[in-house]
């Protein structure tokens, strides 16, 4: 009796094991089937895309050939009035789209006009800001995304009623100078953090920067403290620069601090630091 029970228990476990195996195999097969299908699907997609690509390639080649043979394929009589207008619409749309590179772009709206002022530092375009003006009953600012620390109200008071062009141009000067100062400080933090000690302190307008940085001389490093004040808010170079070293530093370092101070007032901050590192390299490389 006991024996039988044990036997049947053994059979059951065996059966269960077999069942589990069968299930496993079924799952595996299902998975393989799914993978097979996925592979087939991907393969088909690849084939389809290759075909599409080849067709396009042929079209582009044919277009090039045509262009070589006959430069202008623009005969309005042949193209039809609709094609001519559609071409012109596309052309103007592209011009309006690229207008942002001038720094001032705008679009008429129902109630007035929405100007977009872009900023750049040298070749890099940075943030852009919008100013939505209402024109009736008098010109006024409806909405804008200009940061609060830019003296927008003051600029508006001076120019908005008399000369919108001047208003935009002065606002653009302020925004670009701010963007330029911020960009320099950001670049300094990003690329020269190993030379900066502690944190670089700046106000929201980025017209006051204070930071400490390390200067190495004769395989020793010394701390320098820099304070840059940008008095002209339409300018991204400082008007007042103060670089100091600790009182116990050797005299040559005091000279160096003066040289740095001079450099900071003439050259963009990150460029000045770049020139320090290249100076060091050339000194290290010297025999």
């Amino acid at each position, binding site marked *: 009796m006991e024996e039988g029970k044990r036997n049947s228990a053994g059979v059951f476990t065996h059966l269960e094991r077999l069942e589990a195996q069968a299930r496993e195999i079924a799952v595996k097969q299902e998975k393989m089937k799914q*993978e097979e299908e*996925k*592979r087939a699907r*991907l393969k088909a*997609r*690849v084939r389809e*895309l290759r075909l*599409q*690509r080849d067709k*396009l*390639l042929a*079209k*582009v080649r044919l*277009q*090039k050939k*045509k*262009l070589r043979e006959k430069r*202008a*394929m*623009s005969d*309005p009589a042949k193209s039809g*009035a*609709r094609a*001519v*207008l*559609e*071409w*012109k*619409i*596309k*052309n*103007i*749309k*592209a*011009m*309006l789209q*690229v207008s942002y*590179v*001038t*720094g*001032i*772009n*705008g*679009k*008429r709206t129902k109630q007035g*006009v929405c*100007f977009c002022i*872009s900023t*750049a530092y*040298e*070749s*890099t*375009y940075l943030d852009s800001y919008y100013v939505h003006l209402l024109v009736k009953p008098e010109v006024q600012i409806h909405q804008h995304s200009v940061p609060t620390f830019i003296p927008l109200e003051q600029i508006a008071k001076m120019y908005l009623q008399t000369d*919108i*062009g001047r208003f*935009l*141009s002065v606002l*653009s*000067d302020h925004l*670009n100078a701010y963007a330029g100062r911020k960009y320099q400080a950001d670049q300094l933090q990003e690329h020269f953090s190993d030379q900066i000690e502690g944190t670089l302190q700046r106000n929201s307008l980025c017209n006051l920067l204070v930071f400490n940085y390390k200067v190495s001389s004769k395989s020793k490093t010394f701390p320098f403290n820099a304070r840059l004040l940008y008095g002209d808010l339409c300018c991204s170079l400082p008007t007042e620069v103060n670089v100091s070293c600790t009182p116990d530093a050797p005299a040559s370092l005091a000279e160096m601090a003066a040289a740095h101070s001079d450099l900071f007032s003439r050259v963009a901050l990150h460029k000045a630091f770049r020139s320090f590192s290249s100076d060091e390299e050339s000194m290290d490389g010297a025999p």
Partner: protein
Amino acid sequence: MDNSICQVYEDEIQSLEEEIKLLAEKYEDSQQESTFFSDEEILMSIKSFQRESEGHESLSDLITQLESLETDLSFLKKFTGIQFTSHFKEIVEKTTNRTVRKHRLSGNCYSLSFQLEFQLLEMQNKENVSAVVTDLGIVMESGEDSDMSKFVSSTEEHGNLLRFFRSLSSYAEWYEHRRCTFLHFKGKYPDIVTLPEGLLGDYIVLRNPKHSGLELMIVWKIHIDEEGRTTPVLDLLTKVPEQVLEQKMATIENAPACFRSMLLLFGIEAALENLIKVVGLEK
């Protein structure tokens, strides 16, 4: 093993999709750029279209759309002085979030015309599009001006396209202002004011019609520095007969200095007007 096969397929699909997008855009671009219709041809098309389109809503929609876009374009010119007259673009490189396009733009800013060529790398981030200018080339009509050519080459070197437009705008505005001022005084005092180089020249000559010999030349230059800051610079040159010079040496010698302080006190227009009146009175 299986996974890696799928991966290979997926990679190929992605690169094919990117290639197709690039080719399609290239095709579209050069289809647009290989065509050119003059303003006359467009006007003719609009006219023929208006005849046909009576009753066709989709056709008149197209005309309305075109007119609205043209208003947008001339509207911008009103505030910046800048107007594009032609634009060509060509796609150079494209991936999911980077596009490099070559642009050729020509246009004018008030009376000064420019031609530009540059590449624009546009990157799509999560929040916004950032752009970088490379290979900037600028041709200005007023190429002889050494100030301007220095500014242009510094701009080209740094790829500072935005500053170029902002500075050009204020430079050209001064240019326009000078032209209008010369025109105004030529119209108001035609006997006294002469413009040897025309309205676009940088000087005028004042002469009393009854007394030949005395001549005042007002030179009005517009300076632009490498940073793009523009300033007007006015100077007075005198040409006086010798017998007069002997008598009124001091007055004549002081004239340029007086003129400069007059400029500071009254501004350009009033200083010029005063000077013209004085020349007119001279006995």
